[in-house]
């Protein structure tokens, strides 16, 4: 394709938008190194907020909760979503309107309504049967529910991009059902499995609203802790937590960039 050329004004606008996008993050990072407790004036470089972070049990507990929640929910969502994606693919010739509606429901439902529905339901079940007391378990259940469709769609997309004859080829080459899964299906969709896990993990780790409504007193995650800290009054260690989270995202972005460029190079001639 011929290279298009944009007017230089576009470049100026581009950098302004980047400034707009990164300024709030930069402010968080900058003030995380502030020597004094102020969000308005920077009074010198200090690591005191990071130091205080690591002695703050509530933060450490919240981080632990976030990790447990994100890990366990994304593993469950990955398993369920992989089967779902595979089922959608193998039966894509059928009319499955009801199933499509079910899959899109968690995606389109407003977070607030999602969280409140689950919260009221769990509270009700708990008062009636004594099960599903709001806490880590209920959060995991809700997180799996909203991660599942994203995983399934990723897996489905990967299957659609595979040559359908590969399934026949694996059967033709003496692979029974279990060997087919182990030596063909799982290796062939591995990129989507990895992407699906990380997507689910990120969605879970980032989520605030649904966690907020389905959590119990002991299961606050990092976003819930930050939310509470902001509501209580601005505290500079939020900047420190925020900076660490931003750093994690930047690392993830870098990894995904390397991964994208590499797989582009690798599959470049295929597509």
């Amino acid at each position: 394709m011929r290279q298009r050329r944009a007017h230089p004004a576009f470049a100026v606008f581009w950098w302004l938008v980047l400034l707009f996008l990164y300024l709030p993050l930069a402010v968080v990072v900058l003030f995380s190194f502030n020597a004094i407790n102020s969000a308005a004036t920077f009074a010198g470089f200090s690591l005191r907020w990071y130091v205080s972070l690591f002695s703050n049990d509530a933060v450490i507990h919240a981080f632990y909760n976030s990790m447990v929640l994100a890990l366990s929910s994304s593993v469950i969502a990955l398993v369920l979503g992989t089967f779902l994606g595979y089922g959608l693919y193998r039966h894509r010739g059928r009319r499955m309107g009801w199933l499509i509606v079910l899959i899109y429901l968690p995606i389109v439902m407003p977070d607030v309504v999602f969280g409140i529905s689950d919260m009221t339901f769990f509270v009700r079940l708990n008062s009636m049967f004594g099960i599903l007391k709001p806490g880590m378990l209920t959060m995991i259940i809700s997180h799996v529910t909203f991660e599942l469709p994203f995983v399934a769609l990723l897996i489905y997309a990967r299957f659609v991009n595979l040559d359908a004859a590969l399934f026949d080829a694996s059967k033709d080459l003496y692979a029974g059902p279990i060997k087919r899964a182990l030596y063909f299906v799982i290796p062939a969709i591995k990129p989507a499995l990895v992407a699906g896990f990380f997507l689910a993990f990120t969605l879970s780790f980032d989520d605030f609203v649904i966690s907020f409504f389905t959590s119990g007193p002991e299961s606050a995650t990092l976003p819930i802790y930050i939310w509470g800290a902001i509501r209580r009054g601005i505290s500079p260690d939020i900047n420190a937590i925020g900076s660490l989270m931003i750093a994690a995202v930047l690392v993830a972005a870098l990894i995904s960039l390397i991964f994208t460029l590499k797989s582009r190079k690798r599959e470049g001639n295929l597509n």
Partner: protein
Amino acid sequence: MSNISSPASRGSAVLHLLWTTGPSAAWITLFLVLPSLYLVSMAFLTNGTYGQPEMPLSVDSFRQLAGYGFLGWSPGNLYTLLRSLYYTLFSTALTVLVAYPIAYYISTARPSLRVVMLLAIVVPSWTNQVIRAFGWMNLLAPGTPISTLASWLGLASPELGLYPSSFAVMLGLVYNFLPFMVLPLYSAFEKLDMSQLEAARDLYASPLRAFFAAILPQTLPGLLAGLVLVMIPAFGMYVVPELLGGGRAMMIGNLVATQFADGSNWPYGAAGSILMLAATLLGIWLLRRLGRRLGGGEEVVI
């Protein structure tokens, strides 16, 4: 030819469908459909002493939602609804205005650079939205350079700053949803037939007319997909108005949430949830319809 191949009879194909999709379908039904139905049914119950729903059946919650309270009708809820709509539409329009040139600019870059540029646009949205809102709180609070500049220009009072305010909420919404507009628009631009634009520049001369004659029709599918991805979640936004609006710029999601947290009037909140669900479905339906009428429907994902 058949994909459900091999000596699999019709019965075993159904069984296959069941064991692959069944667990997920059951999970979503049990943990989202049933809870939603419970929430919907709750709207038709009476508010009990402790904010819990009780029998008998009533439509009090809907009356309350419509603004009828102990003191007669008040327009508060109506204002909240209109404010939600106004914030959604205004911030979506702004998002479109910003996203168009950005998407176009990315599509003119070298292919290897495009990946980096797209990532640069998306990365901020990967950080937690509470942190992002907190960043804006720090930027817009009274006494910060931006607020000082704004008050010097006469756009804000020096004591109040730019936050909390309606302005901050809309800024936060644009900030949140910009990537979701840029991505589908970019993929539309990537496929754009530039010769048409050149022909349009030839025939109509003015860039604005060329935009409406050549670019808009071709990027319409991307625009519609972007609208679905921006408008629907913007309308139900909770975090941004809660943190950046400071109670004065409440949206419908905050009104609903309040009934389950501090206010403790579950039936009333449930009625509000129904309104949100209805608005969401209506929005999707309208955009899909629009998409089909304009012939770009297939690419609107949802």
